[in-house]
């Protein structure tokens, strides 16, 4: 083995991790990910239902500023059932459901309770049943933040790791 003579090098800037390289930790959570024109999100959870809930929590963080205490009278819900031919499409449909429900109900998404995510045999389709929690934007409890036009298929992934599931998605804002 040969060694090169020492050279003067500029200190390397730390290389940011790629989303795909980030091993999901055991705990549930989500992060927003910068993008030059748009915004990404990273969600992780031990199971698929938790994963889709975390994606909704990330969406909520991006699109609304919420007060700590939301009066119970201001709260509303929307029940949804979505189907898609694979998990990626289900994630696309789920995020776009959040966009549309928020816009049409003029409400902030404060979270979601995912009852089930059914993954049938390969190619046979997927299904999600959930309740989206909402607070109207015209009250004091929620202020609009970033506008989302749509979720995209760009680098959209739903991956299973030993410790759980991870979703990455980019939203057009």
């Amino acid at each position, binding site marked *: 083995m040969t060694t090169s003579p020492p050279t003067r090098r500029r200190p390397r800037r730390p290389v940011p991790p*790629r989303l795909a390289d980030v091993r999901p930790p055991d705990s549930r959570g989500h992060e927003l990910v910068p993008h*030059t024109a748009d915004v990404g999100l990273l969600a992780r959870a031990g199971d698929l239902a938790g994963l889709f809930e975390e994606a909704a929590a990330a969406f909520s963080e991006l699109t609304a500023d919420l007060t700590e205490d939301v009066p119970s009278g201001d709260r509303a819900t929307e029940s949804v059932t979505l189907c898609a031919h694979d998990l990626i499409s289900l994630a*696309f449909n789920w995020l776009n459901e959040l966009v549309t429900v928020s816009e*049409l109900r003029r409400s902030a998404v404060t979270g979601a309770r995912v009852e089930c995510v059914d993954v049938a045999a390969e190619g046979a389709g997927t299904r999600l049943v959930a309740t989206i929690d909402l607070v109207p*934007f015209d009250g004091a409890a929620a202020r609009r933040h970033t506008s989302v036009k749509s979720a995209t*298929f*760009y680098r959209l992934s739903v991956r299973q790791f030993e410790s759980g599931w991870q979703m990455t998605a980019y939203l057009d804002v």
Partner: protein
Amino acid sequence: MLEPGRLSRPIRLEQIDAYRWRIPRDEHRGMRVDGIVFADERLIAPLRTDPALEQVANVATLPGIVGASLAMPDVHWGYGFPVGGVAAMRADRGVVSPGGIGFDINCGVRLLRSGLVAAEIRPRLEPLADALFAAIPSGVGARTGQRLALRDLDEVMCKGARWAVERGFGWSSDLDRTEERGEMVGASPADISHRAHERGADQLGTLGSGNHFIEVQVVDRVLEPSAAMALGLDVGAVTVMIHCGSRGLGHQVCTDHLTSMDTAAARAGIVLPDRQLACAPLGSPEANAYLAAMAAAANFAWANRQLIGQAVRAAFRRVLGTPAERLGLELVYDLSHNVAKIEQHHVAGQPIVLCVHRKGATRAFPPGHPDVPAEYRAVGQPVLIPGDMGRCSYVAVGAPGAMELTFGSSCHGAGRSLSRHAAVRLLRGVDVARQLGAQGIVVRAERRDLLAEEASPAYKDVEAVVEVSANAGLIRPVARLRPLIVVKG
């Protein structure tokens, strides 16, 4: 927040000349043609490690692509296509991809000129800003408070800007100076989902949020006097620039059709490097349905900008006490920078019908082209290039080089250089509105933090973008515009 993504594999770049770079066709990536990036040394440097180049290469894999996958000088990282991307597909064996148009179908720019000079309105900038902000609903999910009946909404989607002019919202000369006369043929409201109808029903005449804006500007420099005269622009004159699109209706159209294209691409055996490039063969039922829905959404956007333009005229009349006609608030031009069009071009000397996708790119037809309005045909199609709210914007005209090199296309703006998160972080503690105020620019915004996201450091230098576009022969710069009032959603 994590930091932004990076290229999955390095992209090879070869310099062609001072303003063009080639991404050589790479069969391992499935590229059918080269990628060509229009940039000088300054603009290419930050792009070398940017995912935008990977997106240029990905677009080059689409079936039927002709010439090259093109990136304009304002190119930046998008989703599917890069923002600033142009791709022309053969009409007989190519595809259409909704990702090559984007969610904001017919997002575009409208420019009004006036007989006013800046000195006449400077004492009235504050009330004028208030009047514009009050008259044009802006911000996330902005609504007019008036809901269009389904039948009326369908008529908007068929007639576009004409629908508004027929109801007194504008002048017939506005249509003469709007791309496609503000009415794209082939629109089919039947191909618009119930959900898209719902999202659009009360958003006609609204600005929206993000990078959409209304600016009152002053012409501070004329670069080509004869073309400026043809466009009615003179040094010191007040102009108004409007940037917005098809709102929730257009967003939903793209979302709906991406899903059907995803299935269509798989059925046609098209292998895609990115599912956001989902596409369907031109002539297929999915492609026909998308193009008809896209035209309907494009017409909605033209009606939207027509209504906003008329609301601007009304705001000027209220504040200055003079009718818009006497203020000379005439339309210079209205263009789309997110759309696909069936156009005839010459490739290797042969005429060929193409589906030209422009995503964050402006049509830039040269003098003499029959699609340029008659009154501008001698100088070329106006190309409206917004910069950023602290610096300047440009008016240019299309040049012959655009037909030779880019299927008649050019840049659509400055192009972002920083993510919103990075811009906010960079400007933490900075009062952007106050800074702009010190420059004599009056600002109104729905959210103060949006100003940091949209401030000058978030954008490339539009002067550099225009210079490259001009030196590459795509456009001829005509006039530079400086902001006086900025209204943001």
